[in-house]
């Protein structure tokens, strides 16, 4: 079933909202910088990363609500509100029972989970923090977005490593197809916390070189990646909507092993490319399969917003914006333009996890 995408909200290192994101993409600006990360032993390290900017949350949420939200939930709640705004939807104009929220996240509320564990390590198990616990569950973003909007329709959280967003997208399409909602806010967010940075660094994966302040080098064989975090949400509706679609989503699915959706009808294939030479055989092979199957450029905009578990939601946003504006945004490597291509009319959005799972969807101009 085809569905219409009628709104986008995004908070990333490129900026707060669609206008800032478009400006950065059009002008080939990246969001990488050197940041400080705290270590568990009390020291700090400097490393390149694409950390999402602090969104203007007070534009959408009152202080009472904001007090109950950590950085991750704020990013999600703001980008969800932005998406509705972008679509021109007033929440009081729609039936709350027909408004759904489907959110992908790999690590969920990692920072709050850490604070919860710290609460019992510091104070004893008898005095663990109930507030931290109730905010540590994986579904907290979808719950808080629903609470903020009063959305009493379907409310799901999907989690599957790098394809968490694509799994959310597939579920949202399925729910619209089966008539379970009129509008679904689908999105994804993960946070690059200091703990995530420390633990992933132990695997030898992350760049600690200030020479990488220019960001990812997706087409270079690198030993490490430059991480990032972001939140992006989208308004999905049946194509019968009265609102003008930004793009049409023809299908979305997940799977394991070889992709089952091969078709030549695309002008562009976007994938997650991080330039990490150790990025697992499956992922590299997956891209080789794509390259051989499609007579179209296979590109990635990770050089703009970094690599994270759910930054593919940002790639999806880039794809929708390219289709909506009938334009093409250049791909960056170490901050330099390396790939340009013609404005696409049909895009295959592809993503794969090193664990052999993949997620994909087909997008076209409205």
């Amino acid at each position: 079933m085809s569905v219409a995408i009628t709104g986008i909200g995004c908070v990333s290192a490129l900026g707060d909202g669609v206008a800032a994101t478009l400006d950065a993409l059009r002008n080939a600006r990246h969001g990488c910088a050197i940041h400080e990360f705290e270590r568990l032993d009390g020291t700090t390290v400097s490393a390149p990363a694409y950390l999402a900017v602090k969104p203007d949350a007070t534009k959408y949420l009152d202080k009472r609500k904001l007090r109950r939200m950590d950085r991750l939930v704020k990013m999600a709640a703001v980008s969800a509100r932005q998406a509705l705004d972008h679509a021109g939807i007033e929440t009081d104009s729609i039936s709350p029972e027909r408004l759904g929220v489907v959110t992908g996240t790999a690590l969920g509320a990692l920072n709050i989970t850490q604070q919860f564990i710290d609460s019992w390590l510091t104070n004893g198990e008898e005095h663990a923090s109930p507030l931290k616990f109730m905010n540590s569950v994986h579904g907290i973003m979808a719950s808080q977005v629903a609470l903020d909007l009063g959305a009493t329709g379907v409310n799901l959280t999907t989690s599957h490593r790098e394809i968490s967003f694509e799994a959310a997208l597939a579920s949202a399409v399925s729910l619209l197809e089966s008539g379970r909602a009129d509008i679904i806010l689908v999105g994804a967010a993960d946070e690059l916390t200091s703990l995530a940075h420390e633990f992933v660094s132990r695997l030898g994966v992350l760049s600690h070189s200030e020479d990488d302040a220019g960001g990812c080098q997706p087409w270079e064989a690198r030993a490490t990646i430059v991480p990032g975090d972001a939140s992006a949400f989208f308004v999905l509706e049946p194509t019968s909507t009265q609102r003008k679609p930004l793009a049409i989503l023809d299908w979305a699915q997940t799977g394991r092993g070889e992709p089952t959706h091969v078709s030549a009808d695309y002008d562009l294939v976007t994938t997650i490319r991080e330039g990490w030479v150790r990025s697992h055989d499956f992922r590299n092979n997956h891209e080789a399969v794509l390259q051989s199957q499609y007579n179209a450029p296979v590109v990635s905009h990770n050089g703009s917003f970094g690599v994270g578990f759910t930054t593919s939601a940002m790639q999806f946003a880039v794809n929708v914006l390219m289709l909506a504006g009938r334009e093409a945004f250049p791909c960056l490597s170490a901050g330099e333009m390396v790939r340009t291509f013609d404005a696409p009319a049909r895009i295959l959005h592809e993503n794969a996890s090193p664990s052999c799972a993949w997620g994909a969807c087909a997008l076209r101009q409205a």
Partner: protein
Amino acid sequence: MQRALDKGQSGVGRLTLWKSPLAKTYPVAEYNGDLEAEIAADGWANERLSRSDKLAVLATLDAIADSGLDPNALRSAGCYFGQSVCGTFGSETYYVASRAGKPLNDHSALSTHQSASSLDALGRRFGLSGPISSFMTACSSSANAIGLAALEIETGHQSIMLAGGTDSLSQIAYNGFCSLQVVSPDGPRPFDENRSGMCVGEGAAVLILESESHARQRGATIYAFVSGYGHSCDAHHLTAPHPEGHGAIRAMQEALTHAGLTGGDIDYVNAHGTATRDNDATESIALSKLFGDHRPSISSTKRYFGHTLGAAGAIEAVICIDAMMRGVLPANLGLETPIAGSDLDILRESQTREVRHALSNSFGFGGNNAALVFSREMSV
């Protein structure tokens, strides 16, 4: 499971998986098998699996063996699982050791931390290539996984789906629920006026879902049909259910409508029934409003297995199907004094009764409500 249900055996006991000052007060429901030996017997001794992954693999092996499916037929199958705790039993230990500055050489807890670890393990073991996703909606997770997997089949996208849930005990879950002061020192007594809370448990359950034509074509024994799935969000509070059960009623009603049934068609309800003050009070209100004068047999099975969180919906789906197959409904263990003013037919003892349609409720944090209807025959 059948033996425990028939004999009214509770799996609630003292915590042994780790040392905790809370253990002398608050019991848990640990898996009582030899998990390591059982997983090693299937050739997984050297695999990096979390405790939750191991429970998932064992349950799936059982389900596949019981289905009589040719393993080759599974290659196109998809897999939806519900989880909540996932691999945190290992990763929380890793974090605590890291925080204490202990040197660590084994980082496998980082990769098995995520829910995807269980599905990846199942994918490797059974060569699955269909749609794959883990749903994390707290205690309604696996009910949602089953409902969404059934939709994949109903819409014709898939002919076989593995659907279930898995969760192991963890310090995060145990300390968390204790911190909320919703864990009972005496074990759960669902729907009892004097109930004092829940008991955290662990487990896994898997259903093999097939399109009817696929199942009939291969001559499979069809245990039941997933005939209805309903889902809603309270959007009321992060942990407390809506006091009037609005969201719960909508989820149950949607499941009935999906199944082409009315409340009067339901013979048995496996209630969420956590034995917390809030849940049982609001679920009682919701059930009363939904069923009106009709009085289906109702039980919560949380005292048998504890509250297995992300796995609860799947385990209770199996209980509903078992009740339907054998015509034996499990007792609501722990019930002495029904909630004042409630006229629900909560089963003090197990009951022999023909069950044509059963309803299973699963409600999670964030007011996440899921309801499933299982039917012996399809009515629409």
